[in-house]
């Protein structure tokens, strides 16, 4: 398909080379501060380059906030952190109109922007705030704009939300509804570091100097990279894999594995397919390719789909693991791929 952006293969090669260089630089800068978490860092970068939001799930103290802050430092992006508490109000996120007295004595209402007016927003423990407060942020995530007092105010691009959840203290929280979880491109699980990683963390953070990330790319460069990534083409048979995978998460579909049929009430929406394809494009470029492959989709399957499966009662009661079900769905779809009979 002809594209108004990259028209020649030389330009494609040039842009792809630039892409890889910038991404490598970003990784290197993040790696100066963050120890381990390779997959988390990679998925976070991919989401950044796609322009999608990420839900980070992990116990406190694993470096989720540090990761997001480091990323914004490396990109020289405006960073804000919102600690979600049960008494947090929507206005605390979006901002509010404040009555202000001018030096002349006149009073008028002035809009005070909330923390959402940043490029990178860290919504810490998003599940602790009330649904009303959550929805204020989620509206901003979807629309990239905020409406206060009837007036819509656009948010600066890129606008990325990194929300966090603590998986072990769910009591008294307000789990995000599935419709809103669907707005996150990825749900990334942050695992506890290994012994070696812990040593490295101690060495880095308890010494005299604490490392900081340097600027590796500008906001404009990130936006350009996002545009380049969108121009990577997807072959029909690869896209077919992505869509069959999405369908395989639905219990009423023919290709769904047994665990999905048993434990899932409703599967991934088309947004899941978008997440797979877009992240596949970024992975292809990072891998020095100009085409999306099935392997790219398989690598993105878990972060892109795990939060989009709505479990039924039996699934919740049995503690069914969405990751396992997605793994089975991937294998099932892979087996169904046409192959030569030798």
């Amino acid at each position, binding site marked *: 398909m002809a594209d108004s952006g990259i028209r*020649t293969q030389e330009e494609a090669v040039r842009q792809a080379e630039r892409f890889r260089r910038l991404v490598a630089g970003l990784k290197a800068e993040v790696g100066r501060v963050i120890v381990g978490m390779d997959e988390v860092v990679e998925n976070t970068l991919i989401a950044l380059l796609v322009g999608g939001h990420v839900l980070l799930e992990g116990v406190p103290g694993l470096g989720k906030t540090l990761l997001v802050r480091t990323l914004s430092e490396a990109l020289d992006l405006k960073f804000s952190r919102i600690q979600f508490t049960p008494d947090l109000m929507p206005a605390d996120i979006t901002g509010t109109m404040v009555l202000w007295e001018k030096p002349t004595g006149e009073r008028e209402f002035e809009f005070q922007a909330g923390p959402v007016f940043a490029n990178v927003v860290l919504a810490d423990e998003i599940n602790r705030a009330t649904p009303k407060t959550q929805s204020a942020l989620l509206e901003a995530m979807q629309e990239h704009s905020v409406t206060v007092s009837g007036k819509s105010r656009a948010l600066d691009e890129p606008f990325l939300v990194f929300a966090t959840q603590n998986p072990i203290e769910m009591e008294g929280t307000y789990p995000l509804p599935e419709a809103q979880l669907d707005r996150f491109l990825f749900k990334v699980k942050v695992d506890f570091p290994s012994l070696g990683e812990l040593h490295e963390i101690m060495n880095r953070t308890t010494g005299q100097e604490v490392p900081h990330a340097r600027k590796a790319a500008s906001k404009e460069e990130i936006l350009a990279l996002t545009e380049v990534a969108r121009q990577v083409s997807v072959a029909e048979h690869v896209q077919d894999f992505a869509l069959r995978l999405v369908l395989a998460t639905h219990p009423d579909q023919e290709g769904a594995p047994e665990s999905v049929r048993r434990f899932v009430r409703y599967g991934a929406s088309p947004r899941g397919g978008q997440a797979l394809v877009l992240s596949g494009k970024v992975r292809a470029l990072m891998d020095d390719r100009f*085409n999306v492959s099935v392997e790219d989709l398989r690598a993105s399957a878990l972060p892109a789909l795990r939060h989009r499966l709505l479990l039924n009662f039996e699934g919740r009661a049995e503690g069914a693991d969405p990751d396992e079900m997605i793994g089975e769905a991937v294998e099932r779809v892979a087996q169904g791929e046409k192959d030569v009979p030798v």
Partner: protein
Amino acid sequence: MSAEAAATAMLREAPRKLRRGLRALRLWVRLLVWVRVAVGSVAIVSAGAAAGVLLFRLHDLWYPFWGPEAALGVVVLAAAVVALVWPLSDTVVAASADRRMGLRDRVGSAVEFVREKSPSGMEQAAILDALHHLGLLRPREAFPVRAPRGGKTAGFCLAALLLVQMAPIPALLLSPEQREERAELRQQAAKIEPLTRELEEAAIDSDDEEAEAIVRELRKFAQQLRRGQLDKKQALLSLSELEKQLEKLDERLAQPRSKTAAEAAEKLARAARESVAAKAMELARQAAQQGDEKAARELERMAEQARTSQDAGALGELAKKLDQQASKLGASLGLPSEVMAALAESLGGGDLGLSEVALNALGASSQEWASSLSREELEALAEELKELSKLLEGTDLSELSKLLAEASECLKVGNCDQAGKLLAKAGGLCKSGLAKAKLAAACRACALGLGRCRGGGVRYGRGGPARQEHIPPNAPASQLFAPRVSDNPGDLERVRAQITPQGEMMTTTERGAPVRVTESRVPYYEVIADYSKTAEEALNREEVPAAYRGTVRAYFDALQSGARPAGE
């Protein structure tokens, strides 16, 4: 050319190069598909055929021996057709190759992008990237040759089929009657084997290729009987074939005789006796002249013995004694007389062995003739050889006659060496003639032995003792040997056929024929043609007395037509 121009050129060529690369992959995949389908099909067909052949053999049913192999051939060809028509699109082949080689869908994606009318920059880059990797790809690397999954099974089934076709059915699976039959056939094999060995020795001695071929057939037949690879009917058919071959061999060995040496036997023997007797009388005269009456009487007695001698060996001994007497008298017979006498006698009596010995002895002694014999003695010897040669002219020893005549001519001109060589050659002729006679005898003995195995006499019309009493002239044919015609038409019975070495397939259909032989050991239709022919020849040669010709003709006509003979 700049890099841009080069890339543009490559992009233009991209569809063609992509198609070419995929064509090679596709061809290779089709080959592998063929192997896989063929192996699977062969396994199934072999297993089915093995089961079928086993059932057929157990129930003694006919089946074409080449049938299972033909079916396997058809199946392999069908597998080739399947492989040719198997749907293999470019996308599927490319995607499979990508997966196997870890190319991350490069080639598969390029196959789609290249179809775009105006591919984007990214797509162009993807196409060129795929072409680069496709150029490095070898079909064998992407789709390596592996042993097909059913390979072992197919091998096992094929082996089972061959085993079932070639190996004898185990005794466990046979009925008691079949086991008894197999034991009987093994006994017949034991009888045939010594006959085969005799024929083989004779064939080697005579260096006869046809005889050696028959020996091989006989050996194979005996082996098949021993291993239980033939049933009784097949054995009878094979025996029939072998007997025919032996008959042909015997006919060839027994040359038509116009005049035999036996006819000249009396003359040769008489000539030898007269020659020795004459020499004895000559020596008796010399002894009488020298006043040795005793020696003279002894010599006269020996002359008389020579005249009445009937044995070539005894005549040779007499000649030797004469030689001794001659030495005592200071005379010399001068001739290898005992050898000549033995030669004449042995040729006359058809004793080729002794003839060979005599001729070789003459040939060996010819080297001394030039120095030990006078010119007159050489001429006399030449005359004796010539006489012998004339007597053998026109007989079945005519080749020998020519050699003796040539030797005689050589002696007349004093060429003793050449004469000796010719005599030695003549000895060789006797040896081959002896071997030929031995082979003919072995052939007949073998034929007789096979006939006994079959349960009858000699197969071909050599006659046999008539069972009936005196049959008057012009008697009705029924008096010769009335065939017993069964009233019961019986059910049609198939007899399993066998392809003969000549490539003919004989099938016979018996109607109401007994499964077990009773008086008749061989069905008459097997022998009627040959016996009728022999009878016809005998009638034509007027070997049958005139009064019986009509009876014989009527008899065979009745057998041929299947009607009852006239008079019944």
